[in-house]
């Protein structure tokens, strides 16, 4: 049966949708007069799907044919699903036409492994070449490196794309061996290391890379997961780790049963919050969690940390430096900057903070502002916990993927 472009697009976008690294932010503005496309530094969302996720890229697979059999993957060879592939030209044309109409910011291109690693990587490269050389397209391109492809191909991809990545998928080697026997952590990380080396040779700034981990398919604790992310950030190998709540698409003896398992969305949400604390708030993973612990479901990680460290509070907002201000629950980086700016002119009280649109809902229990501080609950963890919980449902049931994923304000 011959599939139409529309059928192909539905299939290949449908198989790529579980990859969560959609963001195009953080790339250089690279506008050239008369040429098509430029990347925008702060990332632009072009739409939001009915699950509330941002659409900014044409996110597709080149093909959903795959010779491998990873247990969690919808495209594994043992699944009986319709298979198809775009030609590089088809895909390049689609990208250009979507871009022109401002549907998208650029292309996110991944692929199942067709024939072998090098063959697949060459097809991806061919698409990139048409876009960059023939159409002179400067818009954003994120391409998945194929682990096991040869260095020359990885190198060319690194030079043509804005971002390259390779998914770690599972947080430990043990789990990989169980569910993706063709992959090892070394094999998954090696294209990333290579890409970084090449991009550093060419310029002072390494190409920005990301990875994804599936959460809840296997038994690792949040502590282990954050420890791994933290190591990846410290080695400056990756700019961003994405966490993706496990969605059951297959039956497999080592995987949670599909009917029983709902994607652990709240856990994913808490991991993103903790990840923000790592990247922007100066927390280390072992401040957030202790060995083998999981993140608290009831409280966001910053509030949980503050409750466990009440001896550090209350903090005087009129005197604390920025790195201490951002550790106050409810005050994010923007809030801290507002406080720093406003207190140059006067001593701030609760009312001034409210005026600055800083939410006191959580912060009030942890701060002193001029003569104001919250007297009614003395600083006993349990009392503050109760007070926070009684404020309303949104502490206990945060709106999943609320803005804090994007803004990091906690």
């Amino acid at each position: 049966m011959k599939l139409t472009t529309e059928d192909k697009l539905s299939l290949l976008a449908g198989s790529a949708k579980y990859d969560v690294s959609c963001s195009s932010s953080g790339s250089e503005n690279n506008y050239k007069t008369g040429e098509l496309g430029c990347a925008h530094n702060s990332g632009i969302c072009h739409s939001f799907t009915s699950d509330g996720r941002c659409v900014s890229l044409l996110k597709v697979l080149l093909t959903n044919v795959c010779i491998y059999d990873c247990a969690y993957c919808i495209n594994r060879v043992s699944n009986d699903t319709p298979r198809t592939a775009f030609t590089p030209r088809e895909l390049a044309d689609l990208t250009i036409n979507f871009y022109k109409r401002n549907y998208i910011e650029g292309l996110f291109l991944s692929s199942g492994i067709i024939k072998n690693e090098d063959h697949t990587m060459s097809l991806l490269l061919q698409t990139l070449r048409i876009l960059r050389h023939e159409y002179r397209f400067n818009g954003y391109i994120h391409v998945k490196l194929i682990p096991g492809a040869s260095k020359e191909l990885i190198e060319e991809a690194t030079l043509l794309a804005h971002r390259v990545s390779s998914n770690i998928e599972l947080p430990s080697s043990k789990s990989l061996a169980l569910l993706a026997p063709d992959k090892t952590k070394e094999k998954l990380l090696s294209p990333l290391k290579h890409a970084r080396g090449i991009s550093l040779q060419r310029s002072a700034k390494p190409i920005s890379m990301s990875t994804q981990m599936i959460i809840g398919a296997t038994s690792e604790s949040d502590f282990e997961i954050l420890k791994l992310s933290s190591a990846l950030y410290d080695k400056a190998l990756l700019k961003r780790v994405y966490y993706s709540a496990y969605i059951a698409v297959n039956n497999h003896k080592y995987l949670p049963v599909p009917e029983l398992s709902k994607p652990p969305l709240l856990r994913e949400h808490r991991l993103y919050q903790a990840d923000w604390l790592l990247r922007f708030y100066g927390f280390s993973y072992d401040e957030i969690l202790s060995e083998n612990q999981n993140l608290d479901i009831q409280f966001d990680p910053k509030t949980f940390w503050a409750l466990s460290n009440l001896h550090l509070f209350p903090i005087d907002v009129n005197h604390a430096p920025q790195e201490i201000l951002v550790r106050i629950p409810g005050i994010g980086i923007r809030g801290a900057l507002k406080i720093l700016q406003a207190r140059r002119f006067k001593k701030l009280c609760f009312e001034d903070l409210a005026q600055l649109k800083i939410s006191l809902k959580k912060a009030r229990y942890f701060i002193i502002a001029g003569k104001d501080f919250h007297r009614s609950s003395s600083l006993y963890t349990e009392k503050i916990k109760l007070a926070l919980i009684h404020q309303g449902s949104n502490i206990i049931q945060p709106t999943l993927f609320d803005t804090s994923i994007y803004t990091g304000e906690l």
Partner: protein
Amino acid sequence: MILLYDGSFEGFLSLVYEVYYEKLHVSSIVKKMPETLLFERFHEIFTDEAKARKVLEAITKHFTKEQQRTIFHTVLCDTREYEMALLEYIRIGFKNKKELRNINNTNLFYIQNLEKELLSLVHKMYGFTRFEELEDGTLYVKIETKFNIVPFLGEHFCKRLGNIPFIIHDVKRSLAFVKNDTLREIRSIASFVAPTFSNEEENFKVLWKSFFKAAAVESRYNPKLQQSWVPLLYRTYMSEFQV
């Protein structure tokens, strides 16, 4: 006293001129004559290019680039009553530039928030704008927005679209940013004839819609969240939200 002016940028600058040189005490500023005038005195400002230019020169000399931008941005928030706050902003700026950063002043805080609101709208529309291709290859888009953001969109898409000619049509304000080989400017639109689209246009809309549908993960269905990101008012011209 109440000041009446025509709502244009030049008009506002002329107003600033008169306030300074006639030492007027302003209680409010309106764009239209109020229906009922009680006991207040009121004074009509006539837009005067020479006066406007003088004020503009003074502003350019005295304010930083960033502050000038803030003034210009505030004027683009044309559905809000920004005049009193902006007058105050300019007055404070001429007196003591450092004070302009004092957000404990309600007027300055108001302006700062207004500017943020404008820029966040601009950012949203960078993404939510949907071009359609006309017969001759020109890209065309209609927008209806709270503030006047045509200048931002025009500049943004000049960078993006290379040599492709395009038109951004602000339906409410009857303005259009027009860009082609010879032209790159904002014009007011007197009359408008619905354009003819290219043969491929419908096809790409269909493809976009099916991509949009396929990209959603069913087990994470959350239309409320979707709506908080793309409020209904933005959806009028976004094909993926049309049935």
